[in-house]
């Protein structure tokens, strides 16, 4: 192996170690790694611009603007209170409804924001019900990761895969949507079997508990009614645009003949258009909204793309791909390996750098086999693998971090036992369904 290839591998592994340990902020670690490969000339300036996936970065940026603007209206608190009231004091209904709401919101908005806004409400509900909050919290984590896996915009690995492979929102919905619906049913069943018996409310206290929960006023959560309305409309419009982003020209051409019917919008363009509309319409101070963009996350992605770019430029990825091609006989076999490797690796290490490294590998495999099914295998493994451990996905870290701050302990081993069960069951079901679609 050439010296530059060794440097690229060493920087990748060193950065990965820093990201896992997180003693240095992961964005700083990624920038440091990128700085090293650029400084040593492993990646040129032209190469740097080529390797940074601006589709991913702009899509994340656009969605962050939309979510942070909408947040100011109290939209998410409103959803949380409505969900609580719908449960009518039944712990099982709280578990199911919050799991469904978390999954649906995570499918369209980022998982971290979803769990960050729903977890305080879940903790409050469990406190009122005098129940152990752990079953609700772990279900929320799994639901967030499963829901996020269902759409192109639900989870960063999906955004990265879609941007690199040119996959559409509807393709994600068709191939991963049904898998995640089935997995949600399985998850709720599993959680019921594991925790159902311990989720009983004292009948004598039930009436008072329901009264307390019903006294929550969802309208009081809405801090800005006009912004609330505008946020709901723009989010609905953005979701609609995602559904039709690849054939927007065809639709517009019927009303506006000068529009090229072959025109399509990239998902990142949809998100930025939505962000622009909401900023103009809501008249929110842009400085405040732009301040809330999670710049560290964007720089983290930027740095990673450069580090992985170094692996591509030095031929490391191509070498791994050729080894894989020599040892893998068919697309089905490759699907199996990619899914399980991505799932198990994502449970242990951050799935974003993993996906960033796997994407060029799958592109390279494209020279010898049909890689279309492999994109779904990677998305499935990288997203659902996060359920395996407490550090497997950002949603896990956020929920467990909040729980610890509120004095609720969920140990690594306790989570691992349930997380690994959920990981293996949901990935196996997902792989089975993909197998039926692409192999059988």
């Amino acid at each position: 192996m050439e010296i530059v290839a060794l440097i690229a591998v060493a920087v990748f592994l060193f950065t990965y170690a820093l990201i896992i340990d997180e003693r240095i902020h992961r964005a700083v670690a990624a920038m440091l790694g990128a700085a090293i490969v650029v400084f040593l000339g492993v990646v040129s300036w032209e190469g740097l611009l080529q390797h940074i996936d601006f589709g991913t970065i702009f899509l994340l940026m656009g969605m962050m603007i939309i979510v942070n603007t909408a947040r100011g209206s109290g939209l998410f608190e409103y959803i949380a209170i409505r969900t609580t009231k719908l449960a009518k004091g039944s712990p099982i209904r709280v578990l199911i409804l919050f799991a469904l709401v978390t999954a649906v919101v995570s499918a369209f908005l980022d998982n971290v924001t979803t769990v960050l806004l729903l977890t305080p409400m879940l903790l409050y509900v469990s406190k009122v019900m005098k129940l152990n909050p752990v079953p609700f919290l772990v279900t929320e984590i799994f639901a967030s990761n499963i829901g996020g896996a269902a759409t192109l915009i639900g989870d960063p690995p999906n955004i990265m895969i879609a941007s690199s492979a040119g996959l559409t929102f509807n393709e994600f919905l068709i191939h991963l949507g049904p898998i995640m619906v089935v997995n949600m049913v399985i998850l709720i069943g599993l959680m019921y079997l594991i925790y159902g018996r311990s989720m009983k409310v004292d009948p004598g206290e039930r009436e008072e508990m329901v009264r307390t929960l019903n006294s929550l006023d969802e309208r009081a959560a809405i801090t800005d009614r006009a912004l609330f309305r505008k946020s709901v409309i723009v989010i609905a419009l953005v979701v609609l645009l995602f559904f039709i982003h690849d054939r927007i020209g065809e639709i517009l051409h019927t009303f506006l003949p000068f529009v090229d019917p072959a025109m399509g919008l990239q998902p990142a363009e949809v998100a930025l258009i939505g962000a622009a509309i909401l900023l103009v319409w809501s008249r929110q101070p842009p400085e405040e909204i732009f301040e809330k963009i999670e710049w560290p996350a964007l720089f983290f992605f930027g740095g990673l793309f450069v580090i992985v770019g170094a692996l591509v430029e030095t031929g490391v990825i191509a070498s791994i791909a050729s080894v894989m091609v020599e040892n893998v006989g068919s697309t089905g076999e490759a699907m199996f390996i990619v899914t399980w490797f991505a799932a198990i690796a994502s449970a242990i290490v951050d799935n974003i750098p993993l996906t960033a490294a796997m994407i060029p590998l799958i592109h390279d495999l494209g020279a010898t086999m049909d890689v279309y099914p492999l994109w779904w295998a990677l998305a499935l493994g990288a997203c659902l693998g996060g359920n395996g451990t407490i550090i497997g996905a950002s949603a896990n870290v956020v929920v467990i971090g909040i729980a610890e701050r509120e004095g609720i302990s969920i140990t690594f081993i306790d989570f691992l036992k349930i997380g690994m069960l959920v990981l293996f069951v949901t990935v196996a079901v997902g792989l089975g369904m993909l197998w039926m679609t692409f192999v059988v």
Partner: protein
Amino acid sequence: MGYSSSLIQRKFKDIVGRRYESVLKEYSEFLLTEEEMLIPEVRSILIPLDLFVHDISDEAIDVLSTYNATISLAYITDARVIELLEQALDHASTEEFRAKKEEYGRELLERTAAKLKGHGITTQTRMFVGHKGDDVVRMAKNYDLVALCRRYADGESTDVSISPTVLRICQRVATPALIY
């Protein structure tokens, strides 16, 4: 703190930053705290009265009657005013002033007690010369609730703001306070 726990907190801080604090602040606007969730048992209520409290509103009585508690009405004449009068006027004039104030106080106590009795509330009355702020804070320790008129110890101003003495009492008492 074990490695797993400190790792989670480091990752949490890096992923969430200060957003969790702002989310908690937003939720605290409309979610009850653990203390607020407990329904306090109120068996005794203190209502201080003075020259500037002319009546107890019907809304306040509606709320107070729900507790099924004994209400102590305390009419307080400001000791500093009496002191100033003693310095400025002769003894007879001061006594005359004090007698007039006491008579007003007795009437107010009787009228208020009768109104509360009409709503089925048991009352006790007392009248003394003292400090309108300090004495209420001291007495409040023996009661479950203090109900304060926003005009208490205020003067005859017509604006709707809460009297500074009432605000100071609320800041100092550990007992829950109700302002009417």
